[in-house]
Structures are given as C-alpha cells and as structure tokens.
C-alpha cells in the first residue's frame, strides 16, 4: 500500500534534520528505516528518545514545479515521523 505523506511546513529555528527545501512537499514512503534517537535532541546534548525514520520519495515536479528538469525523476530523503503528516 502506498503511503502518501506531507512534510510539515513549519520553520522553527535551530537544528532540524528535515531539509528546508522539502518542507510542505508531498511524497510517498519508500521504506521504513527503523527507529533512531531524535537528532533534534541529540544536537543539544539532551536525552533523545527513538523516533521512527522513513525514506520518503518525492517527484521532482513536486519539489521544483515547472523548473524540474524531468518531472518523473525523484528525490529520496530520510525524514522523521514527527515531521510527516499522513494524507
């Protein structure tokens, strides 16, 4: 089953592992990667619980619109569950 997700569009300051160019963009879960300690806590030397991490695949036209070189090319990135909204 294809799971569609959207990366949260919020832009808090500080160390965030969801790249800015993917915020607000929609993609599909390519595979779950397991759970990893939350880097947004680790970055400040704080205790970090494990959070599910996913590889999410985006189409280039979703990311860059008409500027995409080839709309069907894709970009995969690793995103934490707490940055994803299910669609």
């Amino acid at each position, binding site marked *: 089953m294809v799971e569609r997700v959207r990366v949260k569009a919020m832009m808090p300051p500080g160390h965030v*592992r*969801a*790249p800015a*160019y993917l915020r607000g963009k929609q993609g599909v879960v390519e595979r779950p*990667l397991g759970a*990893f300690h939350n*880097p947004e806590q680790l970055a400040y030397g704080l205790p970090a619980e494990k959070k599910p*991490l996913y*590889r999410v*695949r985006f189409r280039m036209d979703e*990311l*860059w619109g008409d*500027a995409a*070189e*080839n709309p*069907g*090319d*894709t*970009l*995969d*990135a*690793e*995103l*934490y569950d707490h940055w994803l909204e299910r669609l």
Partner: protein
Amino acid sequence: MPHDHPDHTHDHDHGLSPSGHPYRADNDEPLTYWQRMEIAVRELLIEKAKISPAEIAAQIEAMDARSPANGAAVVARAWSDPAFKARLLADAGAASREMGFDIGPLNLIAVENTETVHNLIVCTLCSCYPRNLLGLPPDWYKTREYRSRAVREPRAVLREFGVDLPDSTRIRVHDSTADMRYIVLPARPEGTEQMTEVELANLVTRDAMIGTGLARTP
C-alpha cells in the same frame, strides 16, 4: 567539473604524491588560527586523558587505509555473485562486513543502477558520505554548489561530469539527511562477461559509486 583521479591527464609534472594528488603546503606555512585551535584541542584532550596519542595515530592510519578500492571490491563481488548482490541490496552494511570491511556503526544502503534507473548521492545538510567504504569525500562533494545543484538539477550536474542520460532514464537522487549512508551499485558494463572479480573492480571508479560517473568499459 571534476573527474575521478585515475582519469587525470593534466598537470602531472610538478609535485604530485604517489596517489596522484598535489602535495599540500603544510608544516612550513604560517601557523593559522584554526591550526592553533587544533593543536590546543588535541593537547587538552591528551592531558585530560580523554584520548591518547596512539588512538589518534591509529585513527589517521585507518582513515588513510580506506579508499574507493574497498567499495570497488564490493561492487565487483556483487557483479560476480548474484546471491551476494541480493544480500548487498537487502543490507549493504552486513554485506560489506561479510567481505571484511569495517564500516563501523554506519547504516549503509546500496542503490542499483539499471538500464532505466540512475542513482545519484548527495548530502545537502553537510557532507555525509560512505567514508568507511570509500575513504574521505572528494572536495567537490563538499561544496555548496554540488550540494544544492544535485537535488535541483541533477541532469545538468551529471552532464558536467560527462554523464548524459536520456530522458527515458529515471534519475533517483538520494539526500543523506539522517542516519543512512548510500553507495551506488553501478551497472555492469557490456563485454565484461569473462572478467575476473579483480579485473572488474578496476572498472569501478569512486564517481561511479557516488553516481556522478559510470563504470569504465573495458
């Protein structure tokens, strides 16, 4: 744009190291602020018994020993042994360890190039790289130019590396944003059916395993 160093044809006449790289002016240059910081940090760590000089020496030696030849051996094995290839694609870390490569705690994913798919690796946040398998990243991999353009216009970037792909080939860019590191399993070139694993490994360039190049044809 750059090439793998075995392809270098220019400026080989002055001051190159055995690996084909220019020597760096180093110990004789004026001491910089950042070099002073390195010396100070290292000495304080040693004095406080946090790290020993032997550990530092061993770490540098281990780093120097890693090179794209390690990754090339893994690729050649995958080309030669379908069962190994299946294990590599299922868990690249475990498959690499099986060949004796110490890849540390790295979570490694191998992505396969085929007739219809071409993979390209980048890290837009910093410069994550499968260093335990390929050694330290080339300078261009760490530039802001590569990191920003690879995700936005991978085809243009690839053309500058001499890789011109038809529109029918699907490009898959992989941004190493978190805990995974990626290595490209290049497509096996035509006309290599009779080659040994060692001969095959010689066709596998560093850039082919990043995706900015293809394996050499014999």
